[in-house]
C-alpha cells in the first residue's frame, strides 16, 4: 500500500514511495496553471528530500510560465506573509509539518497568503486530474529569482505588531528548539526583533530531526534539561516548518500543545473581543477562556484550511488548534509559531507573571490522543460504525467524524486528513475518565478492523 494523501491544501506522501518527482511536478504544474503564470513563491523546510521536490516544483512552475521567487529554507508562515505582502499570485511550501522525516508534502498558498479555500483546492485538484497544464513557450518560460529579502520585511512587520518594548524590558531568557527545521535559521532574527536572550536548541537547518518534529511534551526533553541548566523563563518547541509550537514553563514542566492556543487567546481576547475559531478536536479550555471573555466560539472540521477560512468568514479575531497552531488574522491568516512565541512573551512581560502562573489560571482538563492505523478503504466505514455506536447519545456532533460531549468531557473519532489513520481524542476533568473514554472507543474500533 502506498501512503499518499491528496487534500484541498496540498498533497502529502512518503519520499521513496508515493511522493515521486513526477507527482510533485504534476501538482506544481496544476498550481502553475491555477496561478495563470503569475509570480509564485517557493520555499521548503529542511527535510533532505526538500531539494528534490524543490527542483521538481521549480521546473514545473517555470514551465507553466510562473516566475518563481525562491525562498529556500523558509518557515511556512513567513512564506505566507511574503506572498501577500509581495503581491504574488501564490506560493508552495514544501513541508510535512509535524510528520516524521520520510514524509514530505506540497502545501499550496493562495494570493491572500493563506491555504487554498475548498473551491480553490478543488480547482487545483481538477487541473491535476485533467492533466492539461499551462505550457509556456520558450520566450514565456518563468524565471527564478531570490525572494529571501522578504524574510527581513516579515520581521520588521512582526516587530511593529508586537509590544517589543515590553518584551525587551522583561529581559527574558528563552530556550527554543527548532528541531533542525525551517525555524532554525531565523531564531536569531526572532530574538533580535523581540529583544530576548536566546538559548537555541537544535538550530542547525540540516534536516536531521533529533526527535519527532511534533511540538508536544514527549519531544521536549532537550528543552526541559537546557531550560533547567540555564534558568530560562520559558521554552518553546517548533515543528519542522515553524507553523506550530508547544511550551515549557520556567519550572521545567513541558505543557501539552493544547495549552498554546488558550494561553494566547486569554491575553489576546482581553484586548480584542470577537469570534474565536477552533476545531472539533481541540480542548475545551479554549471554550472556557472565550466564555470568560464573552467571545463567541465557532468549531470547524479539523484541518488548518477549514479553521483559517472559517475565521475569514466569521471575521474572527483568533483561530487556533489544539495541535499548537495559532493564527491572528490581524497580522495574517496563517498558523505562525514565530508570532505565537512573541504573543506568549508579550503576555509574560505585560502581566509580569511566570508562565506556570499563567497556565495555573487556565481551566485544567486531561487529554488523551491516540491514533490507529487503518486500511484507507475502511476508515470511513469504521467512523460510521462509531456513529451508530453513539446513536443514543444526546450531544453528538458529526460534522467531522463523531464527537460526543457531556458535562465532564468529550471524545472525538475522525479520519486523519494527512495519513490513513483514525484519530481518537478524549478529554475529561479526571485523567482516569479521559483514558476510559478513549479506551472504550479503541476497543470498539479494534474489534471492527480485525
Amino acid at each position, binding site marked *: 500500500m502506498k501512503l499518499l494523501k491528496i487534500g484541498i491544501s496540498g498533497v502529502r506522501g*512518503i*519520499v*521513496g*514511495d508515493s511522493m*515521486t*518527482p*513526477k507527482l*510533485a*511536478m*504534476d501538482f506544481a*504544474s496544476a498550481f502553475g496553471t491555477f496561478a495563470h503564470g503569475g509570480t509564485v513563491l517557493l520555499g521548503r523546510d529542511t*527535510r*533532505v*528530500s526538500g*531539494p*528534490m*521536490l524543490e*527542483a*521538481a516544483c*521549480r*521546473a*514545473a512552475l*517555470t*514551465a507553466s510560465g510562473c516566475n518563481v521567487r525562491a525562498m529556500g529554507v523558509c518557515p511556512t508562515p513567513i512564506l505566507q506573509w511574503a506572498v501577500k505582502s509581495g503581491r504574488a499570485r501564490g506560493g508552495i511550501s514544501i513541508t510535512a509539518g509535524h510528520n516524521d*522525516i*520520510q514524509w*514530505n508534502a506540497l502545501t499550496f498558498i493562495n494570493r491572500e497568503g493563506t491555504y487554498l479555500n475548498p473551491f480553490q483546492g478543488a480547482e487545483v485538484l481538477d487541473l491535476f486530474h485533467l492533466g492539461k*497544464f499551462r*505550457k*509556456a*513557450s*520558450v*520566450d*514565456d*518560460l*518563468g524565471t*527564478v529569482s531570490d525572494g529571501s529579502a522578504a524574510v527581513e520585511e516579515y520581521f520588521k512587520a512582526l516587530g511593529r505588531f508586537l509590544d517589543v518594548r515590553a518584551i525587551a524590558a522583561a529581559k527574558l531568557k528563552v530556550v527554543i528548539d527548532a528541531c533542525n527545521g525551517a525555524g532554525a535559521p531565523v531564531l536569531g532574527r526572532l530574538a533580535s526583533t523581540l529583544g530576548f536572550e536566546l538559548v537555541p536548541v537544535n538550530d542547525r537547518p540540516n*534536516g536531521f530531526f533529533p526527535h519527532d518534529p511534533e511540538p508536544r511534551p514527549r519531544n521536549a526533553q532537550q528543552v526541559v534539561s537546557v531550560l533547567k541548566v540555564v534558568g530560562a523563563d520559558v521554552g518553546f518547541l517548533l515543528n519542522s516548518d515553524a507553523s506550530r509550537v508547544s511550551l515549557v514553563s520556567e519550572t521545567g514542566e513541558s505543557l501539552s500543545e493544547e495549552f498554546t492556543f488558550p494561553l494566547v487567546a486569554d491575553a489576546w481576547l482581553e484586548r480584542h473581543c470577537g469570534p474565536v475559531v477552533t476545531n472539533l478536536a481541540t480542548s475545551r479550555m479554549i471554550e472556557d477562556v472565550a466564555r470568560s471573555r464573552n467571545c463567541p466560539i465557532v468549531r470547524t472540521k479539523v484541518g488548518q484550511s477549514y479553521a483559517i477560512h472559517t475565521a475569514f468568514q466569521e471575521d474572527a479575531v483568533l483561530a487556533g488548534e489544539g495541535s499548537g497552531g495559532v493564527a491572528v488574522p490581524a497580522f495574517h491568516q496563517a498558523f505562525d509559531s514565530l508570532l505565537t512565541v512573541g504573543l506568549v512573551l508579550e503576555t509574560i512581560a505585560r502581566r509580569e507573571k511566570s508562565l506556570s502562573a499563567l497556565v495555573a489560571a487556565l481551566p485544567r482538563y486531561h487529554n488523551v490522543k491516540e491514533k490507529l492505523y487503518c486500511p484507507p478503504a475502511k476508515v470511513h466505514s469504521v467512523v460510521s460504525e462509531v456513529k451508530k455506536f453513539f446513536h443514543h447519545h444526546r450531544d453528538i456532533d458529526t460534522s467531522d467524524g463523531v464527537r460526543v460531549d457531556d458535562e465532564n468531557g468529550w471524545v472525538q473519532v475522525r479520519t486523519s486528513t494527512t495519513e490513513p489513520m483514525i484519530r481518537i481524542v478524549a478529554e475529561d476533568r479526571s485523567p482516569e475518565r479521559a483514558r476510559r473514554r478513549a479506551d472504550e472507543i479503541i476497543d470498539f474500533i479494534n474489534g471492527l478492523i480485525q
Partner: protein
Amino acid sequence: MKKPTSLKISISGVRGIIGDSLTPQLAGSLAQAFGTYAGPGPVIVGKDARTSGAMIKDAVLAGLLAAGCQPIEVGICPIPSFLILTKEMRASGGIAVTASHNPKEWNGLKFISRDGLYLTPHQTEEFLDLYDQGEYAFVGPERIRPVRTEDRPVEPHLKKILAHFDAGLIRRRKFKVALDCGNGAGAILAPRLLQSFGCETVLINAVPDGSFAHQSEPTPENIREICRAVVKAGADVGFVQDADADRLAIVDEKGRPLGEEMTLALAVQYILARNPGPVVCNLSTTRAIDDIAAKKGVEVVRTKIGEINVVERTLALEPKAVIAGEGNGGVILPEIHPCRDSFTAMALILEYLASSRKTVSALRGRVPLYVMLKDRIEGSAEQGFRLISKLKKKYEGEGTTNLLDGLKVDFPDHWIHVRPSNTEPIIRIIAEARTAVRARAALRRLKGEIAALKGEL
C-alpha cells in the same frame, strides 16, 4: 502529408519543443529512469546556453535525486568537455540538457555512459525499456544526497589537448585567430584554449547567454560576421563553433568560409600525413575523405548518421582508426576522446598551420574540390521510410545503392543521400559532385523524383 510530431526519442537522445512536447514531467521521468539505469553513483548534469535549460535541468535534478544518484552540476559546459569530465570523474553517467543546433524553441536530453560516451543504440534500448516500464528507482530520504557543483568542468579537457598537441610550435607562430562561439557553451573554454596556444584572439558572440547570434548552425550563410572580422583584423584563420561546441567551421585568411565539410577533410589530410591509418565517417560526409585516404592507401569506414554510430565503429575498428568524424564539422580524434570536439579540431588545424607553414587557403587547395548541396523536406520518419523504398527502385541499376541509413546512391562523379532525420521530423536530402552544375542537376533530379512520389506517400 501527416503532421510530424515534435517529440523525438532516438539514439541521439530526446528532443522536443518547449511549451509543447518537452515537459518537465517527461524530462524528470527520463532522468529518474536514467538514474535507475546508471545506478546510484555520481551523475554529471550540464546544459547548453539555451534559455529553457534551467527549467529542464531542474526537472533532471529532481529525477536523479529521487533515483538516489549524486548529481554534479556543471552549469553551461561544452559537450566534449562534459563527456571527458564524466569519464575522468569516474561518474556513473551524465545527462546533458541540449538540443545542439536545433532552433531555440527546442531542447533535449543526451544520455552519457560511464565511459564518457553517448549511450550506444543497445544501451539506449535498455534504458528506454526501463523508462517505458515506468518502474524507477526511488530512494527514501535517508539516501537522497545533496546536489554538488563542479566549478571547473573544462579542466580535464584543456589538459588533454595541451598535452597532446605541440603547444610550443603553435605559440611560436603567434597566430591571430578570429573566434565566433555563437554565444554558446564554447565561450567557456575556446578563448582560454587559444590564449594557451599564444594566439591573439578576436572574439565574436563570446557570451554564453543562449541568445543564439546566428541560427547556431555554423553553415556559410550564418558566418558572414566572422568573415568580415577575419578580413578586418587580418587574422590567420577564423573559427566558428556550434551551440554545444562539438562542431567547428573554418574561415580562411581571406575571410572565405571553407564550408563545414572542409573541417574534417583538412583534419584527415593532416593526420594521415603524419600517421596513416583507417578513417571512420558517416555516409553523408564528403567524398574528399575517400580521395585523401586513397592517396595514403588507407581504408575509409562509412557508418550510419549519428555521432554514436561513428564512435562505435571507431572504437570497434582493428587496426585502430586514427581519425573519425562527420562532414558537419565534427572532428573526432580518438587519442583525445572518442567524441566530436571543436576544441581538438581547432588545436589540430593550428598545429597543421604551424607545422606546414602554409595558409589556410593553401592547405584547403590540396583537398579535392567537391560541391555538396543539402535540402530538406518535411516528413516523419515513417514517410521517409516509404519514400526510400520507392526511390531505390528508381535509382537501381544506375549507381551503387546503399541502404545502411536511408538511401545513398554512388555514381562515378557524384552521389546522393536521402534519409529521415534522427532529431527532427524532416527528411534530409544531399547531393555532392565535383562541380556545382553537376550537384545541382543531381539534386534537381532527386527532388523531381520525390515530388513525383509524393502523392503515393
